[in-house]
């Protein structure tokens, strides 16, 4: 499986964020997107996720499932965590498992992995920022998708959480997965660096 972008150009609000961006990542590889604030790291992830459309160039996934688009084979973990405060932790997770479908596993197991099993019945409104992040990570584990698009994934995680997530990312890569992560801090796994918005 191979994710590649050719000459990708992104314009937001009439301003060109980046252009002529080439990148490539194959199964088992992680790509760390780095660059200053406002360089377009999040925009790039959203372009790959299909939420935004590129103004020029193309992004493609070769060797995945033919019937499915790149977006349908991707997980997107963004700043906004898609959690409903009125629903409990396990209700939130179970909903996304049922809605996203595909290969899934037991939500309770994923919650145990991210050490949230004690809070399964708690409304998500009471979770701390770090716990919300852990719950979002549990979604990546519960629903199987080969491509993970992560936007500052270790934000708000404590040191133990960051280590845990590094292990989980390692497992995902070992199973033939693919990661594109926008980050300011080291991910804790071997990753190729993709620099955006560097005009010097």
């Amino acid at each position, binding site marked *: 499986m191979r994710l590649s972008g050719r000459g990708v150009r992104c314009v*937001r609000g009439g301003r060109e964020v980046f252009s002529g961006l080439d990148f490539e990542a194959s199964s088992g590889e992680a790509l760390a997107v780095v660059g200053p604030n406002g360089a377009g790291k999040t925009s790039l992830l*959203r372009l790959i*996720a*299909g*939420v*935004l459309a590129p103004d020029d160039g193309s992004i493609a996934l070769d060797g995945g499932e033919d019937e*499915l688009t790149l*977006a*349908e084979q*991707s997980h*997107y973990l*963004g*700043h*906004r*965590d*898609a*959690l*409903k405060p*009125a*629903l409990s932790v396990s*209700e939130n997770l*179970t*909903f*996304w498992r*049922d*809605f*996203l*479908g*595909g290969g899934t596993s037991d939500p309770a197991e994923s919650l145990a992995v991210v050490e949230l099993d004690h809070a399964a019945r708690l409304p998500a409104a009471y979770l701390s920022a770090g716990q919300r992040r852990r719950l979002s990570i549990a979604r990546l584990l519960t629903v199987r998708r080969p491509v993970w698009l992560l936007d500052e994934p270790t934000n708000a995680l404590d040191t133990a959480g960051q280590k845990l997530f590094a292990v989980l990312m390692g497992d995902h890569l070992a199973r033939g997965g693919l990661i594109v992560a926008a980050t300011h801090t080291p991910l804790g796994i071997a990753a190729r660096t993709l620099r955006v918005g560097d005009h010097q």
Partner: protein
Amino acid sequence: MTALGALIRRDIRIALRVGGGALIGVLFFLTVVVLMPFAIGPDLALLARLGPAILWLGALLASLLTLDRLFTADHDDGSLDLMTMSRTPLELSCAAKALAHWLAAGLPLVIATPILGLLLNLDLGATAAVALTLLAGTPALTFTGMIGAALAVTLHRGGLLLAVLVLPLSIPVLIFGVAASEAAITEPLSFGAPFSILCALSLFGLVVGPYAAAASLRHGLD
């Protein structure tokens, strides 16, 4: 199907929990209708004559009040991004969300109608007729309203813009809803024709609404 079932269950559950807003619509409906006799005065014959129109206006305003929430919450917390990316077509997700919204916010209005009919001096037959027209007509309000709700999300303006966009679209529903109710009360008029058009408006909304809303949401994601 699992995906749509899960979406409908989730939205109903959120609507019914604290802060969900399903009951706000019914309470608003109740308030509007209860205020009318105070404004119009104790003329029972006049109240009975205005009854269907008052109930329909109340239901229209109440459904408008809760429509605002249809997409804003999902847009603000990022759920909409994941729905766009998912294997379920966005059109179907929109239809499922509208259906859930109608079950949680529209159906209670229909159920509350018989009680409110008493306050307006409507007899049993007239109340049943209004409730029946509301049952057939409120889906049209939800499905046309969802287009406005999606546009309001896209344009980052909630509340008032939604009312301005949706109210003109609701005029046909209001006309035929009240016409059908009046026809059921006043004998010589035909109930069938306006009621059929009301049902047609609901079906039309069911087909057009999800497509228009999905197109607007897709275009507006950033």
